[in-house]
């Protein structure tokens, strides 16, 4: 598609009508051109084909055999244990990554030190490598042929192919979310307020909890929401370390795969619909929180200044 032809825009002296209500250029006084409409229409079509239709399909297939079959599918013992394990994993992973994210964001955002660039890059590592490698890494460490695995197994501690492995793999994959979100926000809020607090006699923890944290709370929340969504949906890394023991080490995404492989399509889509619901809730929460924090670094910086003011 070619870009909207600006020379035509002035010439087209159409009256300002219903089209402008749906679609008009953000800047300038020019009228809506066909190019503009075409671009918006293409985006809408794309979203429809790739997002809305598949999402609707999941829900319609989930309910294909009726509402009773749906509830039976999601309350079945294996399904219940998969749902439970998924949320336990998220509940363990979130506070840890929150602690890590706050510490990393605080250190990088508020201090200058040697190796800061290196640390910032390192935090992004789990985003850069494939989740499968994240999983393998723990197998190489804690597996029976691994580095510390034989010792742990001899002492009756199971990490891999058990719940701790799932939690560790999820933690690895989701660790950057809070930190990534906080670093720009922390940087933008500067350190003047902290200096003022300390000069007025506040202690270190007091400054952190009463000055630093309130300034970045929306950023924290935003990071936590994203981290939670990924923790619940993680497939690749968890698949490597899970061993897929039904009812024991099967999370929701893994359980969906098992159901699908079992030709149990309506149950697979029923559990999928739960995950999709979490996704939709995430998007809503993200939208609400995003309004406070502003998305993207420049926007978030200015939004945060507004908040601080």
């Amino acid at each position, binding site marked *: 598609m070619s870009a909207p032809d600006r020379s035509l825009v002035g010439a087209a002296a159409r009256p300002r009508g219903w089209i402008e209500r749906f679609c008009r250029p953000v800047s300038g006084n020019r009228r809506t051109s066909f190019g503009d409409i075409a671009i918006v229409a293409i985006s809408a079509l794309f979203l429809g084909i790739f997002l809305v239709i598949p999402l609707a399909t999941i829900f319609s297939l989930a309910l294909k055999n009726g509402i009773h079959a749906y509830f039976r599918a999601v309350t079945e013992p294996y399904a219940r244990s998969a749902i439970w394990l998924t949320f336990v994993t998220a509940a363990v992973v979130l506070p840890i990554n929150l602690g890590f994210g706050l510490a990393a964001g605080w250190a990088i955002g508020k201090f200058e030190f040697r190796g800061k660039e290196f640390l910032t890059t390192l935090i992004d590592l789990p985003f850069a490598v494939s989740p499968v490698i994240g999983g393998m890494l723990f197998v190489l460490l804690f597996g029976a042929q691994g580095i510390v695995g034989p010792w742990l*197994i001899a002492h009756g*501690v*199971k990490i891999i*192919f058990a719940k701790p492995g799932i939690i560790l793999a999820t933690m690895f994959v989701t660790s950057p979310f809070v930190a990534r979100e906080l670093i720009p926000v922390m940087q933008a809020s500067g350190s003047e307020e902290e200096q003022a607090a300390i000069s007025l006699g506040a202690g270190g923890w007091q400054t952190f909890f009463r000055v630093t944290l309130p300034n970045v709370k929306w950023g924290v929340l935003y990071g936590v929401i994203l981290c939670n969504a990924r923790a619940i949906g993680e497939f690749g890394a968890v698949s490597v370390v899970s061993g*897929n023991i039904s009812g024991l080490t099967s999370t929701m995404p893994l359980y969906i795969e098992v159901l699908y492989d079992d030709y149990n399509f309506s149950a697979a889509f029923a559990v999928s619909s739960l995950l999709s619901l979490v996704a939709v809730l995430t998007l809503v929460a993200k939208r609400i929180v995003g309004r406070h924090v502003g998305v993207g670094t420049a926007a978030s910086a200015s939004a945060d200044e507004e908040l601080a003011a």
Partner: protein
Amino acid sequence: MTRKCLFGVVIVSLFLCGARSASAATVALLNASYDATREFYRDYNAAFVKYWKAKTGQDVRIEMSHTGSGKEARAVIDGLDADVVSLALAYDIDAIARRTGYLPADWQSRLPNDSSPYSSTIVFLVRKGNPKHIKDWPDLINPGVSVVTPNPKTSGGARWAFLAAWEYALKADGGSEDKARQFVRALYKHVPVLDTGARGSTATFAERGIGDVLLSWENEAYLVINKSAKGQFEIIYPSISIVAQPPVAWLDKNVSRHGTTALAKAYLEYLYSEQGQEIAANHYFRPVKNPTGRYRALPFIKTFTINDAFGGWSSAQKKFFADGGVFDQIYQP
């Protein structure tokens, strides 16, 4: 302070859920198996739990792990704490024995019939009315025929299928090693997707509608027929195929650590009992013996065994599926 407490709780809970839930009343047994046995073991486990309770008064819970046979073996080697393994082919259990020493190298002689309580074979699953007229192995390489089979590097069923095709071409009129090589080369030219496991290939063929024929485990083919709308698919028995023997074994080192040795042996021995054989037959496996037609009978098919045709799995694996083996030589995507 609360933060510190929280962190402590998290660490402790991490280790707690690592410990095996050791309630005195119920004993757990983990069976590491492959894709195509999900439905069979669901029924068999229920029967065994009842049998064991009646015999010993002990409650037992059977846990299952299913994936491609090779991947499952890899997981056991890496520490999946299974008590027993029931895999698609002996080579995968050999690999566990060789790499971990969890069980002796001669494990296959510990249970009857080479430790294979049931067998299956490789058949063709075609679409309604068999529009491409696929009757036997040579029809698979007719122009315009598209064949679905998983990757022999990762799938047990695919390795059985590859060997069946090879042996057919070798034993056909005027057959030779060169002819066999040409035949399998041509065959894999007709394969549009190589999934990693049997279940993936079945979904490709039955759900996604790709291909004219699926080279399938016999029991898996019947499962597709029963789970899909009537008359949508047909099973074709080729003139000759391979006896696919999925073996079972207990892992000595793991069961002695769990204290489940007697239970694990009984669990596997019960597969050979009348009830175990009947459940296997109900799931379209072939029982060890079916002399009086007691169990569900499957159509007769002329077969050969891996030991007779290829001298066992070790040599077949080395010749065909190892890196640089025949499969690597003939297959170019």
